[in-house]
């Protein structure tokens, strides 16, 4: 059985904090698949994750360049499939290295390349609830991601973020 939790945030700063809590649980080989409409906060969450993974530089949207690389405690591949229209194109991106290598992959607009992602990954779906509030549905799809999601759940019960 896979774990799934729902967490609300009330601001971009809280979303960044949630990213920090998630990032603290990630390690080499983990993949986080992010889904949500334009302006949902995918890049903001990725910023929090990257900081927790020890990267202190700029984490900007990879929409145009498709892949940003950051060097933290592990290599971070910040991928954006927004401009991908055909999954076959992902083959050309060197997806094996990105999604099955030793780094952590953060994949925005992951729905455009689901079949190329590993089966065991953390799926994050972001819904907007008004201008600032966001609802994060975070789901595990295998044993490794279940450890991460359970860990996140445990961390949230002691923090300010609202668990629903």
């Amino acid at each position, binding site marked *: 059985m896979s774990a799934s939790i729902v967490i609300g945030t009330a601001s971009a700063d809280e979303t960044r904090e949630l990213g920090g809590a998630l990032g603290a649980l990630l390690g080499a080989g983990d993949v986080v698949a992010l889904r949500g409409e334009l302006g949902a906060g995918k890049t903001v969450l990725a910023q929090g994750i990257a900081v927790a993974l020890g990267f202190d530089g*700029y984490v900007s949207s990879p*929409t145009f360049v498709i892949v940003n690389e950051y060097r933290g405690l592990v290599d971070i591949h910040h991928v954006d499939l927004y401009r991908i229209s055909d999954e076959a194109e992902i083959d050309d991106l060197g997806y094996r290295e990105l999604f099955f290598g030793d780094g952590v992959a953060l994949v925005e607009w992951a729905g455009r390349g689901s079949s190329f992602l590993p089966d065991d990954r953390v799926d994050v779906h972001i819904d907007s609830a008004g201008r600032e509030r966001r609802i994060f549905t975070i789901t595990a799809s295998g044993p490794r991601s279940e450890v991460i999601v359970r860990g996140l759940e445990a961390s949230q019960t002691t923090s300010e973020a609202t668990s629903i």
Partner: protein
Amino acid sequence: MLVLGIDTSCDETAAALLLDGRDILSSVVASQAIHAEFGGVVPEHASRAHIRLIAPIVEKAIEDAGKEASDLEAVAVTSRPGLVGCLLVGASYAKALAYSLGIPLVGVDHIEAHVFAARLERPEMRLPAICLVASGGHTELILVKDWGRYTTLGRTRDDASGEAFDKVGKLLGLDYPAGPAIEKLARGGNPKAFDFPRAMMQRGNFDFSFSGLKTAVRYAVEDRGGRPEGQEFTDFLASFQEAVVDALVTKTMWAAAEAGVPTVALGGGVAANTHLRERLTEAAERAGLDVVIPARSLCTDNGAVVAAVGQALLDRGITSGLDLDVSASREDARAGREGTA
């Protein structure tokens, strides 16, 4: 010296011949931009298209210049930052050509190439200068202390300015690329009709943020139950464009004042925007600064600016070996040339 410049860092396959670092003998750009349902280009995927286009584009650049391949004296190629698969196409082709002709090869930074648009436009421009590089993937304020010596004073913390145009265009149902479409549709609009946010507008902060503006546009459309129509739509777009341009121009001028430079300059695809060109020119003239606004063909991705950087590197005795590596990011690759670029 006759230098061939090649750029395959993103969606365009580009090649140009540059003589002595200033005379553009030819410049050929094949855009792969294809209208896509998602409001972005289909990067097709870019690397495959680059493979198909690279040889004919380079051959056309040589032919347009009235030259032969054997006339080339060096090959410059964008080696970072960009999509590795795309960069590899240009770099591999450049290596093979340089090797077969027995001429030097030099790897070039794509952002530095955008900065060199100003130098090609006005070779005698006064330095130091503040150069705003604004494109689909990058928005940076760069202090050009000398050609080859730069400090990045600020960057975008989320979306690049060109990305803001494209994503807002997508929200409003406009065709890709949305920058030119918004500029055209905003003409005659009231830029003060809608109050869109300018982020991080504290003096001394040279970073940009356009993500909040994108979200504000989204809510403005949602609140109205759809995009405005008629004159109101024109005003809406003019107000959005004004918000982007205002942030870019204000911070460029702040940076120029803080650094005490005599010149401000533009580069990158967003620099093709007429409103940005006019606003920066006005602001610089008001402040008594020189302003260099390169021709649009130098602002968007092209091989001439790559050749120009290549020439400058060659002039300093810098070449790359045939083991030239490509890199998705700037920082990694820059380490090898610390102090010079």
